[in-house]
């Protein structure tokens, strides 16, 4: 599989994880399980720098290909 497809798929998977974690987090909030809410929120927040990292690697890979 070409590396540019891999990076694209990785970012799409991160977005999917974001949506899933956000829903789980809100459900836990309404069930009053507040520790679970905070943990899922932190996971959600951690996905953002991960997305930036993958984007930067994608840029580097594209420059190398040129």
């Amino acid at each position, binding site marked *: 599989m070409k590396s540019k497809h891999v990076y694209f798929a990785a*970012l799409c998977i991160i*977005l999917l994880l*974001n949506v899933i974690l*956000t829903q789980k*987090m809100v459900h836990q909030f309404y069930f009053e399980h507040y520790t679970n*809410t905070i943990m899922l*929120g932190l996971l959600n927040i951690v996905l953002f720098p991960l997305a930036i990292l993958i984007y930067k690697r994608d840029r580097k890979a594209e420059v190398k290909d040129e």
Partner: protein
Amino acid sequence: MTDKNNKIPFDEDNYTHNINRTNERKLDRRGFMKTLVGAAGVFALSSLPWGAVAAKELSGLWEKEYPHKKITDVNAIAIGDAVDFTFPGEHDNAILIRLTEHKYVAYQNACTHLRCPVFWEKEEQQMLCPCHHGKFDVATGNPTAGPPRRPLPAIEVKVEKGAVFAVKVKRYEV
């Protein structure tokens, strides 16, 4: 400077206006990847208020004792009947149901599915939400039918001096 105004097209010298974007996509691969990263950022930002309120609830700073509110007199409500009231705030609708002569249950009225008011059907003796036919068990508040997944928050009530008082909203049992 103004000699090129209102003359379409004017003679170009190709030092400027030499980028021809007529057939290019407005959103290319790089732009799309940036959008995906930005969306991840928006989700991360959106989880901050939920985490903040959850932390506040955990720390217990928000536990507030509300004054016990009189709902109704014991004589005014028949067995198997229900009374609407609001507790703790004016916009928190609630319902009190008299099951037997001495047994009262009270719940916050907003259906845990999409917050439609839950009604007490006297003939069938059941709690029903009309929006999506969600039903709740009157003894515990647990959902027994329909889309709701969470039980109705129970309100602790006490009977004193011939009247029924609302004491506090109970947290979900762990």
